[in-house]
């Protein structure tokens, strides 16, 4: 049997909600796909579009952006900025030829360890089906959205 493709997924998440949610999943001994790599920022609002682009360029097959639920932001409205930027970033990445399912935005609170597990597993399977992104060897022909 051919070896299964193991995608690399960068999770850009905020310190106060999603990172704590992932921590809860860990301390509760929940199992989730080892394909996700967490990168913590203080707020999801700190996640500049260039972070997502750099991750995709440098080898990530998918990127999950995650933060506090709207209205729950530790900094009052940092996640509102994430929420506004995401639809444009998503469209723009599709124009670059990156499948929409490779990039996802989720709100996961500190108490939602189970939700974190669910999203991490779902995202891993979705990106596994899409196959490697391998941006560096791609040419854009035929990929224009």
């Amino acid at each position, binding site marked *: 049997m051919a070896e299964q493709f193991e995608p690399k997924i960068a999770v850009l998440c905020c310190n106060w909600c999603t990172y704590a949610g992932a921590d809860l999943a860990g301390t509760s001994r929940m199992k989730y796909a080892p394909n996700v790599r967490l990168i913590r920022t203080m707020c999801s609002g700190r996640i500049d579009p260039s972070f997502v682009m750099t991750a995709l360029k440098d080898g990530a097959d998918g990127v999950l952006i995650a933060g506090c639920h*709207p209205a729950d932001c530790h900094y009052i409205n940092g996640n509102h900025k994430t929420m506004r930027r995401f*639809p444009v970033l998503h469209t723009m990445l599709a124009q670059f030829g990156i499948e929409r399912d490779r990039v996802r935005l989720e709100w996961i609170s500190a108490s939602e360890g189970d939700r974190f597990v669910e999203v991490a597993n779902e995202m891993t399977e979705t990106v596994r089906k899409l196959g490697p992104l391998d941006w560096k*060897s791609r040419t*854009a022909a035929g990929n224009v959205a």
Partner: protein
Amino acid sequence: MSGKKPQLALYWAASCGGCDVATLDVNEKILDVAAAFDIRLWPIAMDFKYKDIELWADNEIDVCLFNGAVRNSEQLHLAKLLRRKSKVMVAFGACASFGGIPGLANLHDRKTIFEAVYGYTVSTHNPDKVYPAPKLKVSEGELTLPDFFDDVFALHQVIPVEYFVPGCPPTPETIMTAVGAIIEGKLPPAGSTIGINRALCDECKRTKSDKPKIERFYRPQEILTDPDKCLLEQGLTCQGSATRGGCGALCPSVNMPCRGCYGPMPSSSDAGADALSAMASIVDASDEKTADEKMARLVDPLGTFYRFTLPVSLLVRSPKQPQS
């Protein structure tokens, strides 16, 4: 240089000719330029043969102002040739500096571009499916054309470049700053961009509020703008906040949003990401549905945010190295 005037070459590659016209827009100062330099090459104004350039000694030219991106083998050949003949190479204009408008073609490759241009556009009549070929044998001999690359390159991606003069086209003031620095020998460190290190908003005279907010996006033809208020706050995709100043905020002063032709700020890792981030963050939406609806009015984000900089963007695809 013992009384000999500095030698100047101007060349154009994948460009529209606007940079050359802008050079003439310095008006009577062009006479100062002609007085200060020996103009050795300027295809738009005078007749030259490529074989003459090949006869020059290496480093014979003091300054070469190279405008236009590199998208075919002829342009690459000239870029390499002029690099060898010139002491100082200047990427002149947005195309040479960042790839410019022609750089948007990097969303496609040669095959898909040819299929569109010589195949299915409405005005194309090509029943025999004739495509440009680098070589064609006819009874009189062999005809050749430059080889069209898959990718468009900014000048520094194919040869080493000392200075960048941004702009589409560079304004006469920017050109004279660059030329003045060359004449007086007061050149900045190699790798510098001629321009200011502040955002365009700093030069723009429009009133900006402390807490800017965008109610909705408009395209320029959809709105009569207030002549005194910030265009971004009125819903136009003005990229001043993510664009290097130096042009004197020309476009906003005539009610057109900044399109970003002076390129990213010095500290920027990606021009488009910066503009997107700045613009989207201040849209008036505090729930996902409103955000999705309002952001959907921003049509063609890639074309808007990378209008001049696609070949130097973070997500530039790995180009097939051009063959000289």
